[in-house]
């Protein structure tokens, strides 16, 4: 329904060419789009506001990396902020340019005298019972724990039966139901059964409750007091809207949360609630529910959810990879050569190598929003890693003189080159033709600026290869 954030930021920020540092006015404009994107993703407004203020302070004055656009740069800063807020490790102090790295999943805490107790809480229908079954199954099968499940839901019709059936499906024992027993007493009985039965873990599934339901909140607080759980998990729906903050805050205040499990991540909601809840409780998001089946459980990765909230393809990894693979000086040098119309086969070889590092043209385009059509062309042209490698091999079996002066390559030389690269003459011819097309393009770019580059790139794809747009050196676009 909505354009991705990076497309939008792209259009906001095209006005500012690469002028070094981001200015406050540029950032202000960009932040309006970031705000919209976050709100459309259901991040709670107070969280959005605070986040924007933080990101803005971070972005103003930052230098735009040479190989990316200012729009991409802002997306990257926003993304890193999100990752950090979602629990990603912050970049080390003073470590300029370090990433807010992906964080591995936070494990379930099973400390203390066994059996460890995991208490599952949340609103009605959020997925507590199903998630109880999922976690139990994982602990039993992957971590070889002996797990007992008990349902404290004495309200919803057939709730206890539901957990019993899930236990049967997963091969996890459930506490036998005693008709009429109340939640606190069920919890006590479960703990006892856990102790005497030699269980490692006792999982307590509770009834869904509204965070404003005083009686039921008291009840679950009492259960917690008796069961002394090592983990109190808030189970929340990824589709939750603005209310996520109030819900998570209340449960945290009343019961004291240790972790959050986000369910229905298999849907198409952008999942802004994750950010809201994490921000307001400071509790790690530990697990994701990604389906109705008991093995549809995943670990949480801050960077993936951040990308999803922004809804922006993978501009971020484009920026990162561009930073990793492109030497600024190389780019500068190339830019000069292009302007003088001196693009030679050596330059082409280094372009091919860089492209390969970035996952080939297809991989590169896959990371860029708004180039769906081009992706098709690329597919049709079959520019894959293997092809890039072969082309590099052909160029490397040329002499330096040949590389710098492609004009001298005639029949006998071609034969030698082909033999050296283990390729056919036709392949060598094809490569040379591509080179010529590229060189022509480069000349044009050098003269007329970068606008034609994207168009030109599409045209060149028939032969494969070409200079990916994200790699356009700074001097080349003017």
């Amino acid at each position, binding site marked *: *329904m909505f354009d991705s954030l990076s497309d939008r930021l792209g259009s906001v920020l095209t006005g500012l060419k690469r002028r070094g540092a981001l200015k406050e006015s540029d950032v202000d404009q960009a932040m309006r789009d970031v705000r*919209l994107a976050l*709100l*459309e*993703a*259901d991040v*709670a*407004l*107070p*969280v959005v506001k*605070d*986040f924007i203020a*933080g990101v803005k*302070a*971070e972005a103003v004055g930052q230098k735009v990396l040479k190989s990316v656009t200012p729009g991409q740069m802002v997306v990257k800063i926003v993304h890193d*902020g999100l990752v*950090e*807020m979602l629990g990603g490790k*912050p*970049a080390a*102090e*003073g470590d300029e340019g370090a990433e807010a790295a992906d964080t591995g999943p936070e494990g379930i805490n099973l400390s203390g005298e066994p059996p460890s107790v995991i208490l599952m809480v949340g*609103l*009605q*229908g959020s*997925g507590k019972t199903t998630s109880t079954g999922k976690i139990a199954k994982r602990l039993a099968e992957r971590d070889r724990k002996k797990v007992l499940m008990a349902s404290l839901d004495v*309200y*919803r*019709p*057939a*709730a206890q*039966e*539901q*957990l019993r*059936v*899930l236990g049967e499906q997963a091969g996890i024992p459930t506490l036998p139901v005693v008709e009429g027993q109340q939640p606190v007493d069920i919890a006590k009985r479960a703990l006892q059964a856990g102790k005497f039965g030699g269980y490692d873990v006792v999982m307590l599934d509770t009834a869904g409750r*509204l*965070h*404003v339901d005083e009686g039921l909140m008291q009840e679950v607080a009492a259960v917690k007091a008796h069961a002394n759980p090592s983990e109190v998990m808030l189970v929340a*729906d990824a*589709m*939750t*809207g*603005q*209310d996520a903050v*109030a*819900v998570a*805050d*209340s449960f945290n205040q009343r019961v004291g949360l240790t972790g959050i499990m986000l369910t*229905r991540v*298999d*849907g*198409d*909601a*952008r999942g802004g*609630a994750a950010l809201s809840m994490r*921000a*307001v409780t*400071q509790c790690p998001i530990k697990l994701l529910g990604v389906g*109705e089946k008991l093995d549809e459980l995943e670990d949480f990765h801050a960077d993936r959810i951040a990308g999803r909230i922004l809804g922006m393809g993978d501009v971020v990894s484009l920026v990162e990879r561009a930073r990793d693979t492109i030497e600024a000086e190389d780019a500068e040098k190339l830019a000069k050569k292009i302007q003088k119309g001196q693009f030679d086969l050596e330059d082409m070889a280094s372009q091919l190598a860089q492209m390969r590092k970035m996952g080939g043209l297809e991989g590169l385009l896959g990371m860029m929003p708004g180039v769906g059509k081009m992706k098709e062309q690329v597919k049709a042209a079959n520019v894959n890693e293997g092809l890039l490698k072969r082309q590099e091999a052909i160029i490397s079996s040329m002499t330096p003189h040949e590389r710098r002066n492609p004009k001298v390559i005639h029949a006998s030389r071609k034969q030698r080159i082909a033999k050296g690269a283990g390729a056919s003459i036709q392949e060598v011819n094809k490569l040379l033709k591509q080179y010529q097309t590229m060189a022509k393009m480069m000349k044009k770019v050098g003269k007329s600026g970068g606008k034609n580059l994207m168009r030109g790139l599409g045209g060149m794809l028939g032969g494969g290869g070409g200079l990916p747009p994200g790699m356009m050196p700074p001097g080349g676009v003017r």
Partner: protein
Amino acid sequence: MGGSWFQRLKDGLRKTSSRLATGIGDIFTKRKLDAEAIEELEDLLVMADLGPATAAKLSAAIAEERFDKEVDEAEVRTALADEITTLLEPVAKPLTAESDANPHVVLVVGVNGSGKTTTIGKLAHALKSDGKSVMLAAGDTFRAAAIEQLKVWGGRAGAPVVAKEQGADSASLAYDAIEQARAQGSDVLLIDTAGRLHNKADLMDELRKVLRVIRKLDETAPHDVLLVLDATTGQNALNQVEVFGSMVDVTGLVVTKLDGTAKGGVLVALAERFGLPVHAVGVGEQADDLRPFAARDFARGLMGLD
């Protein structure tokens, strides 16, 4: 770089969350409706889940009318509530479940956990109180104990429940249910379905099959296709209505869990975009916790007025 601004953020959030918990509070007393005041209004709407676009549009409309006038908070909120009421009134239509058909078939659909089964229990209760004979069909043959859950509701309402074993084909269950409802002369048949996310093509196809099979027996059926939405859902509700609407011809909405603090403001955006009737709202877990959708009450709730 580093975590410093994040630390500031943490401190800030403590305040904002309490601000939220206590409601919006006094964002304005009598003062000029200036740009800042309008932004605050917009914020209020965003926080009620209307979505940024709808919120901007509505507050712009108010701004146009009263910009630079001296107004007080209640006045502006009331004006906005009126605006929203006007938008919602056309979609506030109670479910009659009346047609020449026997039985009148109601198919209930929606994403997982939205409140379908409970809503069927409540509807059965209401229809029985109206003197109708009601039959229920346990069409969720997938989820653990879904059948048992519906049977409890059937027992409470005094409505017979047609069921097969777990794992049975839901389309053939629906077929059997219509035949049984005919045989027993039931006025209304309420068919439960398994929760499904709208982006799952195979599950949506399964639902279409249920629809096809129902139409084999009665081409005018189902007479109502109710999409049950959870009021805590944010902007994703738009996708839900769009996809369920186009795949299974949804005829109306029921919004559940309005007894919480979620305001369900996405309904405003839904009304604007799809114009589907909103038949009822759920305000609790008991059989009589179902109300007709009242546009004015809902709009005033959104604006924090009562």
